[in-house]
């Protein structure tokens, strides 16, 4: 029975794990769609789902590298908290006095300082782990307490709001690029995908490597392009509510034309996730840095003997994790429009769960960026869906916990079966 389908998947060279995760996401979505009486798989809900996933997804890509090098980072939730809080202070209490209220330079300076700060804290933790050889579990467990305490100390328990209006757009809830730009991006993305497939094929042929049959290339290209266009179509189908449009027209002293509609398109935060995903995938697959991360995860001694400075590599991996956490802090605080001292609480566990559900092995050496993104999406779909169905929050936590354990168990069986260690 699996013969025909199995051969098809093999010819197309699609990762079976990826198929499994997409399948899991579809099953979860369909179940909630039925259970909610048809409100789960709507453009509006899917739009919200992507917004809610964005900050965890960004951090999950960094967590893949951390776990691949046989480390763990428990501090990111607290790191997100303190960086978010400091960015709040900078943009609300410091910069308006210097550059003037509402200046567009406020969000740029805030984000830059935040990312540098996140990277610096991450690098420091990485230095403790790589050079002083303190286990990452301990360093980042300490970090979890220290940075959360720091966030409370900076804010004295208060919440900083409202944040800079330009900064808030980065959260995506009020910052979308509209229909035309979204389709423009989809077209550019589709063209790049096709060019990439053609380039790979041409290169393989020039070296006399075996290539997929031509129909398989076409099929793969068609699947990817329809996926890009499908996602764009869904996000473009979410219309701005009429009363918001009316208010906007009224504010400009105009009458809204009869039957006028407008859709949101891609939220800026989702574009940030897309950019981070592509950049991190290139880093993982196509740079020496990424190659060394996986080499170190597979066999630290071999990496060391090959002349790789594994200590410095550890510092860089944690610095990158810190920078990504700062980006996640931008998204999370901008989405809420405020920076509270409990921002990011328990995010470390959501992020680790997303990476692990996405196929990152805690033993090190194995993991993919797209897997972590899908893992984050699956987790958020579960949580949102249960919320919509009206599952109590304690029960939600219990179910998510159970799903995490079962997902890892399935993963272990999968690896054993495929000999994928």
């Amino acid at each position, binding site marked *: 029975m699996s013969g025909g389908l199995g051969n098809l998947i093999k010819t197309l060279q699609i990762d079976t794990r990826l198929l499994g995760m997409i399948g899991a996401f579809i099953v979860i979505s369909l179940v909630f769609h039925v259970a909610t009486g048809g409100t789960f798989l709507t453009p509006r809900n899917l739009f919200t789902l992507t917004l809610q996933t964005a900050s965890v997804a960004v951090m999950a890509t960094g967590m893949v590298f951390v776990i691949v090098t046989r480390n763990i980072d428990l501090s990111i939730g607290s790191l997100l908290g303190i960086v978010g809080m400091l960015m709040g202070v900078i943009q609300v209490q410091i910069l308006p006095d210097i550059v003037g209220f509402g200046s567009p330079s406020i969000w740029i300076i805030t984000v830059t300082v935040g990312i540098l700060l996140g990277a610096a804290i991450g690098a420091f933790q990485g230095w403790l782990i790589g050079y002083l050889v303190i286990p990452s579990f301990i360093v980042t467990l300490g970090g979890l307490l220290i940075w959360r305490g720091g966030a409370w100390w900076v804010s004295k328990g208060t919440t900083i709001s409202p944040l800079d209006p330009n900064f808030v757009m980065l959260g995506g809830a009020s910052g979308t690029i509209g229909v035309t730009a979204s389709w423009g991006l989809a077209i550019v993305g589709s063209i790049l995908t096709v060019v990439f497939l053609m380039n790979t094929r041409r290169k393989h042929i020039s070296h006399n490597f075996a290539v997929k049959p031509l129909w398989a290339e076409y099929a793969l290209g068609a699947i990817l392009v329809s996926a890009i266009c499908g996602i764009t179509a869904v996000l473009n189908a979410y219309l701005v509510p009429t009363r918001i449009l009316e208010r906007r027209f009224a504010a400009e002293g105009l009458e809204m034309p009869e039957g006028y509609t407008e859709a949101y398109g891609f939220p800026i935060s989702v574009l940030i996730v897309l950019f981070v995903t592509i950049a991190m995938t290139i880093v993982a697959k196509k740079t020496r840095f990424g190659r060394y991360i996986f080499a170190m995860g597979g066999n630290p001694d*071999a990496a060391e*003997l090959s002349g*790789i400075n594994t200590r410095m590599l550890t510092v860089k991996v944690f610095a990158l994790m810190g920078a990504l956490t700062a980006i996640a802090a931008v998204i999370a605080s901008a989405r809420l429009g405020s920076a509270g001292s409990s921002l990011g609480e328990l995010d470390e566990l959501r992020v680790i769960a997303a990476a692990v559900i996405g196929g990152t092995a805690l033993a090190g050496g194995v993991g993919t960026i797209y897997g972590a993104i899908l893992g984050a999406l699956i987790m958020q779909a579960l949580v949102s869906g249960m919320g919509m169905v009206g599952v109590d929050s304690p029960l939600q936590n219990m179910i998510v916990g159970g799903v995490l354990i079962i997902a890892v168990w399935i993963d272990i069986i999968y690896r054993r079966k495929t000999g994928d260690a």
Partner: protein
Amino acid sequence: MSTPLLEMRNISIHFGGIKAVDDVSIDVMPGEVVGLLGHNGAGKSTLIKILSGAYKKDAGEIYVDGKKVEINSPIDARQHNIETIYQTLALSDNLDAASNLFLGREITTKFGLVDDTAMEAESRKIMARLNPNFQRFSEPVRSLSGGQRQSVAIARAVYFNARILIMDEPTAALGVHETAMVADLIKELKAQGLGIFLISHDTREMMDLCDRVSVMKNGQLIGTEKVEDVTEDDILSMIIMGKNPKKAA
């Protein structure tokens, strides 16, 4: 007599209070295989790790082509064309053959990205020479047999023009057929003028492959002899008794 390709002179290293290597001198000529023998813990692997840059010596000097060199890291060793093939098959199991072969020395495109296609093409070329049966280029090396993995490790050394090759128990994890393959490979590399240090427990194999053998015990060098001048029993007594029967006689 010509200059040795490589000479380690009066090397010492200690870990805590234990002298793992104590005032040991060995050398190798071009096109020569020198065997290192001794019990576990005799100091062979430690000595060799000093040469490959994994450990730093406390005393002594290293000469390549008669010139003194400093080896403080694996990168230094590679710059002097010293390549090591380890007992524990030092490969990253989760990476494919080409990634392992080029680890630390990747071929990059003009944009600075790693060029997997070019690396696989180069790997195919060198494997066609060393192990023509090898075909599994796109799988992680964990799924390969011991012999296939060892041929990846050897290909790595050969590809980067090793002049001095250190082989630490290269056949320990291999079957009969694969051991013969590695032995043939050693003979071929020797014919190409490489100097080879070979560590093994198998005295008979050493008598067959080596030109000279150096025997160590408790971190000290017992003696270095040409294989045609000694019997297997002589070597065994050097290993076990720690005495050189030729000098005693």
